[in-house]
């Protein structure tokens, strides 16, 4: 068999290949129900969070004392609360706060978890130290730990982010660490080391990028957890101080008047649930897309 010696246009081949891959990826994404629905829900909520407040004339704290406890109506889709504030407006502003905290926690915990996880997987002594601490943090119910931290730090949005990030980081660190450990054993790492690459290079250029798919999936679930924990903290009065309309605060207000005004509980509650459903779906879909092996079990 003779090898043809014509010039094969490598660029054309490469771009044709890329096009093919993109088509396949597109198809995989579109047929992934979880991913699409989850994404739509999250995108919707994010848009509401970002642009909702701009479209609304008044301020979430505008009180209309004559109109307290108004049931849902054309004027007030979600009704009004104990101070006459429009619940819908508060929920929309609350989206900004609660989802904002969720995103912040997801990002911070991801970065911290990535660093902790990767370095733990690489250096044994660091591993022992960091993993013991992680075990300690995870051994304790997250909400209670966050509560204790909030008590120590004081009730502010930024502290909520810090507290919840601390609680969330070990989970990401674990996931990254176990991926990294598996990757470390693979031959391509050995080969790279044989080429003389430094530890830092191996870690950041080769191992870390391969842990990203698991990390992103985990981060999505952390986002969801963060929303829940923030809501719980605010509900208990240990989170963002009122009158800021975080979803947890609205629920907290609603709890006292649950007999009189069910809408103060129902609508923010539905919104939170919707957000979590969206995130769970997205995370599941993402997991299927990025790592089909793990999905076989849950499908």
């Amino acid at each position: 068999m003779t090898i043809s010696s014509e010039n094969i246009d490598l660029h054309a081949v490469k771009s044709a290949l890329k096009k093919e891959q993109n088509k396949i990826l597109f198809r995989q994404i579109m047929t992934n129900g979880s991913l699409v629905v989850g994404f739509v829900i999250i995108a919707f909520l994010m848009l509401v969070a970002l642009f909702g407040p701009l479209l609304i004339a008044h301020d979430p704290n505008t009180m209309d004392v004559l109109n307290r406890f108004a049931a849902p109506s054309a004027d007030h889709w979600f009704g009004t609360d104990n101070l006459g504030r429009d619940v819908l407006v508060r929920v929309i502003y609350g989206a900004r706060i609660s989802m904002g905290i969720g995103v912040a926690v997801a990002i911070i915990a991801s970065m911290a978890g990535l660093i902790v996880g990767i370095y733990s997987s690489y250096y044994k002594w660091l591993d022992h130290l960091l993993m013991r601490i992680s075990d300690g943090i995870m051994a304790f119910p997250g909400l209670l730990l966050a509560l204790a931290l909030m008590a120590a730090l004081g009730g502010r949005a930024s502290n909520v982010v810090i507290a919840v990030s601390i609680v969330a980081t070990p989970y990401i660190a674990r996931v990254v660490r176990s991926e990294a450990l598996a990757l470390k054993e693979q031959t391509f790492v050995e080969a790279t080391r044989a080429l003389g690459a430094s530890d830092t290079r191996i870690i950041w250029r080769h191992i870390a990028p391969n842990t990203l798919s698991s990390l992103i999936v985990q981060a999505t679930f952390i986002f969801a957890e963060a929303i829940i924990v923030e809501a719980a903290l605010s509900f208990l009065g240990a989170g963002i101080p009122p009158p800021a309309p975080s979803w947890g605060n609205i629920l907290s207000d609603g709890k006292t008047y649950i007999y009189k005004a069910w809408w103060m509980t129902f609508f923010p509650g539905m919104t939170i649930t919707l957000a979590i459903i969206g995130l769970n779906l997205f995370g599941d879909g993402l997991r299927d897309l990025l790592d089909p092996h793990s999905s076989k079990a849950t499908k």
Partner: protein
Amino acid sequence: MKTYLFKRLLAAIPVLFIVSTIVFFILQLTPGDPALVILGQEATVDEVEDLRQQLKLDRPIYEQYFNWLFNALKGDLGESYFMNESVIEAILSHLGPTISLGILAEIIAITLALPLGILAARRKGSVTDQSVMAFSLLGMSIPNFLLSLFLILVFSVSWRLLPVAGYAPLSDGLWEHIKFLILPAFALGTAHAALIARMTRSAMLEVLNANYIKTARAKGVKEKWVIYKHALRNAFLPILTVIGQSFLGLMGGTAIVETIFAIPGIGQLIVNGVMRRDYAIVQGAVLYVTFAFVFINLAVDMLYGIVNPQVRLDSKK
């Protein structure tokens, strides 16, 4: 088997140590002086100082820490700053409700989840399967405190079937006791039911693909027995892990649910303790919770050994 257990117990000690250390120092960082809170705003500076000396709050942190640790090892967790009892008494008296709640929640979770998970696995891809998965998604997504509020709205406010809040100990009668625990147990248990159902389904699906299931069918075993005897026994291991983890998760979840339903359990104890800066209580309770955590983990491992002969035998060698 015994060496395995012993090693696990040993490994748990550093965890306990770290957790208690972390919490101790967090609490120390917390602004707010318990002495001041106890005596109230009108107390004089001297009175506050006296109380602080009494409670040993004026000693340097590390000394306070070692004192506490030393006492803890002796079994003395100190006195609550606010309540008139020792920490241990407080913990013990609050243990009952939490345990009842936890057990009831877990029972509800398992009773709902196992049959649904198995059903979904058997009818994979069908409408039944999809419905089960959809319900499980919903169950997992509603935060437990939210579900508590919804349940209260429906069952207590609208339909007036069950009490909104409160607690009656077992000594008051079984129904009285359970009456107050049903809603909170459902609120807690639903999320876990969702997780367990998912795990059950996926574990069953994996097992049903195994070769030994083919063999069982080839032997002429009736389908019912293929599922419940051959498949479930094998699928039970991962399911058990999830059940164990869920029980642990319940410990953390009880805090807010207990607060909403006014159930005097450990969760509520800790929440109140943190809010009131009752350091002694919080530290003691944290230690207890962590210890329970470790203990339950161990129990699950032991159960694992019983269910899976391979684990048992390997450790014999």
